[in-house]
């Protein structure tokens, strides 16, 4: 099972922290800092999981998730949304837009790792075809 994450985060220091954590946990991490072409980047990378910031330049995280869910084959892609605007309203909107999990900044590193692993595991159970194909390259 491949461990490929695309991280869309415009705040460089936060992006660096997450990249460090996940890399140490044996994940391949692609970092991208802009919302405008985020969907293209994700489609091109074809990751197992996406970590998406809510407030992004170019396009907001909500717009990105809405577009992402419209692309064939990406409807079930696990998306973990991170936001510094931890209001209830934001969480509801995010879940309606199709976010798999929602997490408020600041977070503990353990939380992020657990969330990423959980999502990855769930996705593997739900999508055996993908889980199988995941074994081939590694």
């Amino acid at each position, binding site marked *: 099972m491949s461990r490929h994450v695309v991280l869309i985060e*415009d*705040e460089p*220091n*936060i992006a*660096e*922290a*997450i990249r*460090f*954590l996940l890399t*140490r946990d044996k994940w391949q991490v692609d970092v991208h*800092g*802009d919302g405008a072409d985020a969907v293209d980047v994700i489609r091109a990378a074809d990751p197992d999981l996406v970590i998406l910031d809510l*407030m992004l*330049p*170019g396009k907001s995280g909500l717009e990105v998730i809405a577009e992402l869910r419209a692309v064939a084959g990406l409807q079930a892609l696990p998306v973990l949304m991170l936001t*510094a*605007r*931890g*209001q209830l309203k934001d969480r509801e909107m995010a879940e309606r837009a199709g976010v798999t999990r929602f997490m*408020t*900044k*600041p*977070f*503990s*590193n*353990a939380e992020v790792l657990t969330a990423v692993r959980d999502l990855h595991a769930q996705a593997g159970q739900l999508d055996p075809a993908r889980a199988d194909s995941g074994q081939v390259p590694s």
Partner: protein
Amino acid sequence: MASLNMLALVCLGYVALLFFVAFLADRRAAQGRSAAWMRSPLIYTLSLSIYCTAWTFYGAVGYAARSGLEFLTIYLGPTLVMVGWWWGLRKLVRVGRSQRVTSIADLLSARYGKSNALAIGVTILAVIGITPYISLQLQSITLSFAIFAEADPLRSYHETTTVFWVTVGLASFAILFGTRNLNANERHHGVVTAIALEAIVKLVALLAVGIFVVWGISGGIGETLQRIDASRIGEWRVDGGRWTAITFLSAAAFVCLPRMFQVMVVENEDERHLRVAAWAFPLYLLLISMFVLPIAAIGLELMPVGSNPDMFVLTVPLSQGQQGLAMLSFLGGFSSATSMVIVAAMALSTMVSNHMVMPIWLRLQGAAGASVSGDVRNVVLFARRISIAVIMALGYFYYTLSGGGAALASVGLISFVGISQMLPALVGGLFWRGATRSGALAGLTVGYALWVYTMLLPALGGGLVPDQVLAEGLFGLSWLRPQALFGIEGLDSIVHAVLWSLSLNAIAFCLVSLMTFPSPLERLQGAQFVNVFEHSSGPRGWTGSVAQCEDLMVMSQRILGATEAQAFFQRELEHQGGRGPLPDPTPMFLERLERELGASIGAAAAHAMIGQIVGGSSVSVQDLLAVADETAQMLEYSNKLEEKSEELSRTARQLRVTNEKLTQISQQKDAFLSQVSHELRTPMTSIRAFSEILRDDADMPLADKNRYATIIHDEALRLTRLLNDLLDLSVLESGQVSLNMSAGQLDEVMDHAVNTALAGSEHPMKVNRTPDSEALRISSDLDRLAQVFINLIANAQKYCDAKSPELTIRVSRGLGQIWIDFIDNGSGVPQDHQQLIFEKFSRVSPERAGGAGLGLAICREIMQRLGGDISYLAGQGGGSFRISLPVEGKNLSQSHI
């Protein structure tokens, strides 16, 4: 020879015939079977002939014998009115009918705000003015009796006794005729028919005498003309002044005389009758005056010198032995006198009882009120009968006072001048809305006073006015001589009196009308009169309740009689289409009832009586004014209410706006908190994540450790800056900031700002300055100003994307302010962001260097506190900001230089 007894018998017989005719006509009218001829314009025209009194019958011949053709002026005036002013008469008739007025006093009172004072004044003046006229009739009948008495040697003739009995006879005649019916506006069919008969009798009599004179004595028209030329009459010359004055006078009197008003307006059956009368009445006048000159000329020739020319109509036939013709002639004169006396007494008594007796009686009844007192009908009838008796008595006294020696025509002219004083108020009231009650009163008073002084008193002679006054003027002042007022001498006494009394009357009327303000009721009535053709009937504002209708019924029965009142109420009920026992007291109904009652007791009294019931008390003009004032107050109050409600809706509007603003502010606050939360959480996220990494990863390479520690440090600094900015902004926005104003050099402040902003930069940008322009003395909070400069310079350093960044600082002076521009050579702020950048947390580019987006917001707050502003300068190539500072006050600058 006809004896006096025989004469008396003939008179009684004639009177009995008149009564019979009147009775028949009344009965037929009451039964609704009045013959067509009774309602024809011919009867109307003949009734107008009461203008021709004994003065015409006897006096015209005397007038012609004394003054030639001048007697014609008496007929010229009415002819001109009928032919040339019929439209004015039509308006008069229409007003009279639509207002249901009962007399000329009633009309004037109604026109000038139902003023009873005016009605009383006009009534008194009319009585005084008519008194000589009535005495003229007494005189003429007495004279004619005297002629027969001379021819009857058997009887001893006593003049005073005759006059007395003639007066008594005429008075009872008038009472019997004129006060049988109460409703003055119910058209006295009987009286009018009797008068028409008398008109025919007097015309036939005069024509008969004339024909006898021309063909019986003179022998044809040609010879008669020669005899006229030969007589004194042919020598009389026309006096232009007198002709004009008397023609005008007779025209005025024709309109104003109470008895003429009675037959012309009150008794008018149909407005269209005027059209026939317009040519038929002048024709009647022509016929009746046709033989005046021949009779006068032949009389002068035949009768002995010194015989009274006023009696030629009688004496000429008698001298020729024509007893029958003389008797006819006597009847003609008798007809002239009686018809005039009947109608005049009727008209005057209506005025006296309606405007003087009834209001006094009503007031005496006082609290009891009109509806609960005795039978008003009887009171009114009694008042009228007494009035007739008093009027006749006045005529009798005038006759005895003046000695009865004057020519008939001169007595008549005195009356004419007196009566004509009503003309300005009457004509003004019909055609000028600006005419007021005070004006009418003033004009009448001035006119009558002058008439009494210049005509009546001199005519009454020695008994009342000392000769000294006549000759030398009042108080010995020559300009107050009654017959040469203001030193104007040489005028004929008639012309003199007409000139002064009528002109000053008219002037007083106009001036006072212009100076005074009409009451609401006057304005209302004025409009009804002047524009009578537009609204011949219109509601005049009575209001009542059902309960009062019974009271109205009771009162109406007392005044109109039970049958008539019930019939009227029944008609009104049917008209309204109601089912109840009584009609609803609508304003229309009350107005009609007022007119109906007004016909019996006069407009003012009817108004007062209805007012007593509907309004609960006597309604005077003052009361109405009070009502009008109250209405005005209500209007004002409602205006105020309107203003209040406008104010309320304005307040509501303001509240709505405020509420919207508050909602907006609340939303902004939420957005702000959300933004602050985001700005705080972001550095905290980094700090937490890296501190956990450092804690958990002990064997991390040192370089990484250092790098992560630096990030933690930088983010901590960012948090501090953010908190500082937030606090700063909060203080600035709340206005609690205390500015530390001081004077200093702009260049020094700028030096400090540039050094501070660029300190610590690895590659400080180049700064272009012009020291000369910066050498300015300024007065401001220098620290705050420096903070703004530092922020702008730091922003330029941070965001300028040119290869070799440069910042140009320009200082210039404008209108009362100093402009400081900061222009870099980067790509600048995109146009759609240029306004946004001054808002909190707005950032142009995502790649910040630790700013929270509060810097420019703080700058704007500071500059506004300092009385200046900050704005983005578009079109300068790079990013450019302009700061404007107010130029300091002169005193401050001088004290610091």
